[in-house]
């Protein structure tokens, strides 16, 4: 770009002005710069989450109205630089280059100015219409920094600098004013060239000249920027050149020659030299415009970390916190859960009442048992899940999760996983579906896949009713909680063992580098946390509303049809419950159960358990309801509670076998579906489903047979 190009907005490189009334605003910035809080301030509840096409990176968009304009705001993934290292950084970069937002708001952490400006300066080089939000300026002030806004703005090409304090909602209006001004072209930026030095500039000019003929086809249409990126060995930009230039091979060869020349001159690779010059420019600008007293923004955080990340205390504190999280989840969740159970029962009663008493029919059965029974059983657990996600959101938004990743990385490394893998694993205790989506934090595909494969072993909330049912039936009160905890532990141990095995077989090779910024502790905003929780809870609801609903209907059909021939002419009509059990035995599901019996006898399952498990394939929560039906539990005075029935028919060892099998195997349909879409191939889904179920079978076989031999089977 030449010095004469003062009109960047609407320039040929940027593609013209916006249609009247609407502006697209892209929010860019480093991770931990407070970008998301700002986004929440701007859009509040008016945001939606989707996907960028072709990649599993979350796309957050929202709407805001200001100054007569409708602003479509996209919260880009946090990125440190326009040279993308990970999938989401690439998405951020490509969005800016290819989608031409009307204005880019770069959220800069004012208390970490120089590093944050690295991205800003690259956006400036790209010629993007830009506004800089100096976020967390309260922290910067407290640390004794004072930024001469006018001076700094001038040094950066008159880019509007707006002081914001995202956590207090300050500066939002001024920010929007500036964004609209730049977005409409009312305020123009000045191009400020970064002095790369004579040698580098010569090479840039040479390459830019070669790219000039194809300029129209290039994205972005900025030969100088492309030339610079080629010197930085940016692989994605090389792809763009190949796509746009007829003489791509020559251009790339020339770039290589330039790089070698520069490497010879500087005795260092060109990207290092270029990065160095950029930082030099930033340093110079900051020296002129920023006055600071020496005070670390990490002082308080370091004090807290002295305890939380203590070499000896750190891990126990972490484990203690995790225990607290689960304790709260189950304890506090009980009350709303009881309320919801009551509500579902009333609903079923009310719906059943729509038919005249005594009338039984397929539609009534479908509504009451199939749909309300199935879906209701799932929704009842929503409070638990929301509490769990809230607790996790608190840990994440305060910055503790990063510390936890630091503490556990050493142990995760031993089983072949990445420190960051434990975040999805914690979420997996609530529901596997959002946990699989959470593996996106992992940059390496191999780590992602390995984590996805073992996630179902984290005992999710769907198994809880199963544990409650069986431990309640077979164990004395004081043993119930410890037994349930034991199963959680078994899941974790199994996951560790499986991870290690995968690492040694399928996912061999060097571990992905663990590099993560540790932000200072922050007080999270209520709004931020609630949005965070809603984001995850919504997935669980979607699973309930779609898959489980469909599965409940299918299962209802499988367990209701075909119907056995009519009741015997003589004798009293059988109780509704007993008749139901007979129907189940006669139905498709019952037949499958019976057919599988030879295979499942060795692990202690009879046809009834098999039939119930057919339902659990769709969603584990369904198992308990199915067991209820199998043992003809219905409304009626002589009906025996399910737990007594279970005690009559099974031994404690069999109960353990059932719980173990459900823990280790049969990932639910929702999990399978999400694994398929996140991994990109049905093969991984099949490996997960088949592998875990086979593993479950073998483990249950061993436990049951050994237990029987030891005589534990009696009683």
């Amino acid at each position, binding site marked *: 770009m030449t010095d004469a190009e003062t009109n960047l907005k609407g320039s040929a490189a940027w593609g013209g002005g916006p249609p009247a009334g609407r502006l697209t605003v892209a929010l860019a910035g480093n991770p931990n710069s407070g970008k998301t809080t700002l986004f929440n301030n701007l859009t509040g509840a008016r945001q939606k989450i989707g996907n960028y096409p072709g990649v599993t990176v979350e796309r957050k968009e929202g709407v805001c109205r200001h100054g007569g304009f409708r602003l479509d705001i996209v919260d880009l993934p946090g990125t440190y*630089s326009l040279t993308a*290292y990970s999938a989401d950084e690439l998405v951020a970069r490509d969005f800016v280059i290819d989608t031409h937002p009307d204005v880019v708001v770069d959220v800069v952490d004012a208390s970490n100015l*120089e590093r944050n400006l690295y991205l800003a300066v690259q956006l400036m080089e790209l010629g993007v219409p830009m506004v800089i939000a100096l976020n967390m300026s309260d922290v910067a002030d407290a640390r004794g920094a004072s930024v001469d806004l006018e001076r700094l703005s001038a040094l950066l090409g008159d880019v509007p600098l707006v002081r914001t304090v995202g956590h207090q909602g300050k500066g939002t209006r001024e920010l929007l004013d500036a964004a609209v001004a730049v977005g409409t072209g009312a305020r123009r930026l000045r191009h400020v060239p970064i002095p790369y030095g004579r040698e580098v500039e010569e090479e840039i000019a040479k390459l830019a000249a070669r790219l000039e003929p194809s300029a129209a086809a290039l994205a972005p249409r900025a030969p100088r920027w492309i030339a610079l990126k080629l010197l930085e060995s940016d692989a994605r930009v090389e792809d763009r050149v190949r796509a746009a230039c007829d003489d791509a091979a020559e251009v790339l060869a020339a770039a290589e020659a330039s790089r070698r020349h520069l490497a010879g001159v500087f005795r260092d*690779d060109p990207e*290092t030299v270029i*990065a160095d010059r950029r930082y030099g420019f930033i340093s110079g600008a900051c020296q002129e415009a920023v006055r600071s007293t020496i005070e670390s923004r990490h002082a308080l955080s370091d004090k807290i970390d002295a305890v939380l990340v203590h070499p000896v205390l750190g891990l126990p504190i972490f484990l203690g916190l995790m225990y607290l999280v689960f304790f709260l989840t189950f304890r506090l969740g009980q009350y709303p859960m009881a309320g919801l159970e009551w509500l579902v029962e009333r609903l079923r009663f009310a719906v059943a009442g729509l038919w005249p008493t005594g009338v039984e029919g397929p539609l009534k059965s479908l509504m009451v048992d199939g749909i309300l029974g199935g879906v209701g059983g799932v929704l009842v657990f929503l409070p638990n899940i929301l509490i769990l996600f809230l607790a996790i959101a608190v840990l994440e938004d305060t910055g503790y999760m990063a510390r936890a990743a630091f503490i556990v990385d050493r142990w995760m490394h031993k089983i072949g996983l990445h420190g960051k893998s434990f975040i999805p694993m914690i979420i997996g205790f609530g529901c596997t579906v959002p946990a699989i989506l959470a593996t996106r934090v992992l940059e390496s595909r191999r780590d992602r896949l390995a984590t996805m494969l073992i996630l179902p072993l984290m005992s999710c909330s769907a198994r809880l009713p199963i544990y409650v049912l069986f431990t309640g039936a077979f164990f004395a009160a004081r043993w119930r909680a410890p037994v349930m905890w034991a199963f959680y532990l078994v899941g974790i141990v199994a996951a560790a063992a499986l991870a290690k095995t995968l690492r040694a077989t399928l996912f061999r090779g060097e571990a992905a*580098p663990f590099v993560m910024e540790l932000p200072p502790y922050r007080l999270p905003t209520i709004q931020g946390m609630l949005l965070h929780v809603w984001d995850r809870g919504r997935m669980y609801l979607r699973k309930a509303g779609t898959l489980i609903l469909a599965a409940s209907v299918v299962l209802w059909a499988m367990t209701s049809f075909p119907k056995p021939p009519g009741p015997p002419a003589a004798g009293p009509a059988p109780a509704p419950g007993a008749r139901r059990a007979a129907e189940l035995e006669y139905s498709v599901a019952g037949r499958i159960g019976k057919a599988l019996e030879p295979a499942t006898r060795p692990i202690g399952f009879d046809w009834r358990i098999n039939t119930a498990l057919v339902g659990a394939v769709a969603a584990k929560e369904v198992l308990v309801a199915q067991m209820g039906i199998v043992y003809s539990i219905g409304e009626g005075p002589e009906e025996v509670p399910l737990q007594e029935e279970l005690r009559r028919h099974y031994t404690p060892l069999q109960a353990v076998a059932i719980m173990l099998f459900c823990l280790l195997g049969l990932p639910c349909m929702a999990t399978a579906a999400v694994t398929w879409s996140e991994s990109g191939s049905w093969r991984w889904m099949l490996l997960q489903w088949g592998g875990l179920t086979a593993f479950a079978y073998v483990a249950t076989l061993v436990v049951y047979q050994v237990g029987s031999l030891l005589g534990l089977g009696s009683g």
Partner: protein
Amino acid sequence: MDDGGGNPAVPLSSLPAGAKARLVSVNAGAGLRARLVAMGLRPGVPVTVVHNRGRGPLLVAVQGTRIMLGRGMADKVLVWPLAECPAAGGKPAGSPPADPL
């Protein structure tokens, strides 16, 4: 490569908590190096080791940022230790270094 005084560059992972050093180079692919540079870990920048337990990841302070590095990664980051010795008499290991904004 040495710092002119005959001292060779050493892996960051070998420095104890409290040690100060100047980053020399990173033994990694171009992509990862670019990422580290963008995060602040660039040649010539002063770094301070905040936590180094001998096992597990390290925590380093770089100009107002804290960055966690896995041990494998830290083995590949080469630095020149700076003269200040974090031994007895100096600041206790792990205390926050004063760093400019």
